[in-house]
């Protein structure tokens, strides 16, 4: 026991200063590609139109890399409506409706000591009955549609739905997104979104008026 404490003290603080400080090591290919040269680009996700990139559709496939380069700046989520509960803790429940596992892994990373989202008053709950926000990862598969609706119904109001990752927002190249099944209040782009992008979305959703 004592040795674990000493080990921890030796290690020092790993936790990021975000959101007070900047996000570090943002994965380049989750940031917005910017047009660098003319040429034909066949975007398999249909994210590029007239030289502009729709990050809600981008799947980080680098098929545009001959003519586009990511700008390296963190991508912000779209908050259509938030939940103003700044005076108390914020509880989230994650539901996997058909993901490849990468989004699950990035949401799970919020627990690690680098992001440590508990320090911001955010917690994971094991039941939607105690959740303020439903984080949806993956496309909405046929088998999970009913479970998704049931989880949403079980949540107390006020409640929000956070579509996390391109699959959940638009279906990407795999299936259908959450839209049409549930109202998506927050859209977190990325394939998968980096933990910073998810953390930023949670903060902005919680503090929205």
């Amino acid at each position: 026991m004592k040795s674990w404490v000493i080990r921890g003290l030796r290690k020092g603080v790993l936790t990021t200063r975000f959101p007070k400080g900047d996000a570090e090591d943002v994965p380049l290919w989750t940031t917005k590609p910017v047009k660098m040269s003319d040429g034909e680009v066949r975007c398999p996700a249909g994210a590029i139109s007239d030289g502009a990139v729709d990050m809600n559709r981008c799947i980080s496939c680098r098929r545009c890399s001959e003519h586009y380069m990511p700008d390296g700046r963190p991508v912000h989520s779209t908050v259509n409506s938030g939940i103003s509960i700044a005076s108390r803790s914020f509880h989230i429940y994650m539901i996997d409706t058909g993901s490849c596992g990468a989004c699950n892994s990035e949401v799970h990373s919020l627990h690690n000591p680098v992001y440590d989202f508990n320090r911001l008053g955010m917690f994971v709950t094991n039941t939607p009955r105690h959740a303020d926000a439903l984080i949806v990862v993956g496309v909405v598969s046929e088998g999970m549609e009913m479970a998704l609706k049931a989880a949403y119904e079980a949540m107390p109001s006020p409640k929000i739905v956070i579509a996390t990752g391109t699959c959940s927002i638009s279906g990407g190249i795999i299936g259908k997104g959450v839209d049409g099944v549930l109202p998506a209040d927050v859209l977190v782009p990325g394939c998968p979104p980096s933990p910073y992008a998810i953390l930023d979305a949670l903060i902005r959703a919680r503090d929205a008026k």
Partner: protein
Amino acid sequence: MTEENTDVLSGAFKDIEAWNAIFRNGTTLRRMQENRLSLYENFDYIAGRAERGESGGKEFIYGPSSGGMLESIRFRMSTEGERISSLVPEFSFKNRSLKLGGKDTETALLLAERINGPYSASYSALFCGVAESILGIQPSHEVRLTRMLACELERIACHLFVVGRLCEAASQSVATAHIFGLREKILRMISRRFGHRFFFGLNDIGRIRTPVDFHGISESVDAVVNEFGDLWQHLSSSTLFIDRIQRTCPVHLESSVGPAARASGYSTDERLTEGLLPYSDFSFNFRKEYEGDSLSRALIRSHEIEESGSIIAQVTDQLHKADASRPASISDRRGEGIGRIESPGGETLLYLRLGDSIERAYIRSSSLANLQAFVRGISGAVFTDFAFAWESFGLWVCEMGGVI
């Protein structure tokens, strides 16, 4: 070339009315009748039909969406008091029905690397390797080494995740934080060097899509491996931790793959065969355990983290900078091929038949191969063992759905 072992069924899929079987180390399809295939005890699992079983007795249902699981899966457990007498896994709730058939290789590669995001480097290297062999494209040595490097970095990140989840299940909060901190270090290093934390978009047929700078990778990995070694040694002296995983979910099943098989004394590792990647040019220690329990699986993973570090040091000695080359010209050659790769979960098998587009694809994932071992091992365990058992296998539900 390693000899085909017809005692172990590696994969089976149906084409119209006939069944095709692939055996361990086999490189050809064998037409077989269903009644003969059903003699293999893992047939229902690898054919994706394990959900049909009856658990019997009083059923306890867990899932498909529950706080304790990272992914959606439902278990129907037959219980006697706190003991689990049998279990039926229902993994198709989140099935995305991925279809490679009818797609061109470019589109199919995108889907292949999303079968299991955390194993993306392995899946994309496997798909590219099999497609290249059919199309007669020979990628450069540098490209093959870069793929191998990505696979080993992926293995370290995934093994750290499994050991971290195991500590989390065993309420070892401090150790969990240390291990997930190390995993984050690896993912960030991957992100800085390869542009993405899960290698999405890196591999392409015949080439690497964007440049990679290998400088400093080995040193960063070394630091993580050494720190993990120290943590693991420390963790191994914790009786609280060891008591929870020792003799938990013991199983010996020859059809299992990867760390689960090696923890049960079986010598299976695709890196030891003449496969798609040049592992035979490098040396690493192969280790087996014999108890087949959660502790043995964790021991194998801790050992493999160290060995992957050694492979990475050897590979990066030969690599300095990989430039993105021009796309390979895709020939109109047609044909079929079988390939295997050792993903972090174990042997992953791909059969591909190419015509004008992909005519048929079949993937047997490591998680599907090991699901039977989990189901068999968990019977007789108590409820509290469930998390230690599940996490020790490192199974991913996303890759159980199958691909056609």
